């Protein structure tokens, strides 16, 4: 005891305690390894479950983002339409959503989700904030069919803003719109804006239709023709405005029967 207290066994005790500590560490390391080995599968299972839960949460949030983006898009369109309507206080507008297209590829019509219950009548002009879309062709209580200006049977009287002349805008089966009946002595420039003239009473005047992108003028033709790029993207029509206080003039009694 006296020798121990005197520090004469310190080297021997160091060796002993060091060995014990090493042994302790060895056991501890092995135990932790075995513990990890035994508990790891349970952790993986719980992690997998957690991963599944997080993926489900992620999918739900993604769906919410898409829904919100869609709502933002619709709100933006509606805001633009409201601006357009406020800029033209002389007209009364009713908004309607495009819910379908004509089942025949020969025709260019869209279906909208409002009808006679909202005061829609055949012949009412349909627009967006960009310009003219077409006119209401047929109505039922809660839906209407709209003839687009790209339809082969569509015919809109327009005037060219810069050229100061009037012409007839006709659609086609491919969706292209062409200006016809332009007098040969009129000089048309690319980019000239086509607006509704109001002639014939089918549409109100000064609605933007499109821009001239190509002119065909041949000496032996009676009239010039021009291709027009419509300002409205008809493939992405989502919401339209119907001018409900416009009464189209029925000119059919004036046309002589064949």
């Amino acid at each position, binding site marked *: 005891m006296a020798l121990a207290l005197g520090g004469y066994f310190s080297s021997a005790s160091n060796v002993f305690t060091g060995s014990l500590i090493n042994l302790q560490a060895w056991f501890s390391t092995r135990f932790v390894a075995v513990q990890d080995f035994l508990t790891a599968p349970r952790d993986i299972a719980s992690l997998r479950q957690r991963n599944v839960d997080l993926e489900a949460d992620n999918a739900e949030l993604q769906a919410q983002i898409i829904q919100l983006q869609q709502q933002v898009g619709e709100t933006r369109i509606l805001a633009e339409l409201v601006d357009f309507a406020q800029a033209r206080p002389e007209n009364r507008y009713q908004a309607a959503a495009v*819910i*379908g*297209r*004509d*089942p*025949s*590829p*020969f*025709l260019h*019509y869209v*279906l909208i989700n409002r009808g006679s219950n909202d005061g829609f009548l055949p012949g009412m002009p349909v627009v967006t904030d960009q310009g003219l879309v077409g006119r209401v*062709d*047929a109505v039922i209580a809660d839906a209407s*069919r709209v*003839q687009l200006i790209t339809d*082969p*049977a569509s015919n809109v009287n327009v005037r060219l803003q810069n050229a100061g002349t009037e012409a007839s805008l006709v659609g*086609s*089966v*491919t*969706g292209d719109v062409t200006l016809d009946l332009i007098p040969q002595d009129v000089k048309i420039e690319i980019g000239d804006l086509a607006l509704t003239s109001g002639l014939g009473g089918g549409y109100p005047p000064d609605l933007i239709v499109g821009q001239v992108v190509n002119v065909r003028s041949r000496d032996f033709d009676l009239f010039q023709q021009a291709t027009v790029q419509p300002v409205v993207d008809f*493939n992405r029509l989502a919401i339209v405005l119907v001018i409900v206080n416009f009464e189209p003039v029925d000119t059919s009694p004036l046309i002589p029967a064949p």
Partner: protein
Amino acid sequence: MRNLVALPVIILAVILQTAIVSRVYLLSGIADLPLVMLAAWALQEEVETSWHWALATSLLVGFVSALPWLAPLIGYFAVVGLAQILQGRVWQAPLLAMFSVTFLGSIISSLLTFAVINLSGVSLPVSDVLGVLTLPSVLLNMLLAIPVYAVMRDLARWVYPSPEVE
């Protein structure tokens, strides 16, 4: 009683046509889901109501579309008639019959629509109609033919269950 399934199926087909199929363009052509559905239905051996389906479908399409009623009416009846003629003649090859009816029916329907629109006073250029409208529409209809045939075959088996053999 199970024959009444025709009504929701036809309504669903026309809704899908106007809401989705009509927005999927190939050049200017689009698929005609009701036509393909009628062709597939009329080709099922056990089916006896294909003419009724054609009538109901053409009435509904005629109501929704701006086309004169005559065009879908004659077109869909022609498709069913064609299917009735080919049914059983293309032995053990129902898909071949389906493709034949879809191809010929699409062309007949397209030409008929072209004729009706021209008669109504709107002149359409033949080259445009054939090149960018009829042929792409036929191709899209052929693409729809296989899945629609499978669905209508299952539907026909449900409506007309075969008697169990003991």
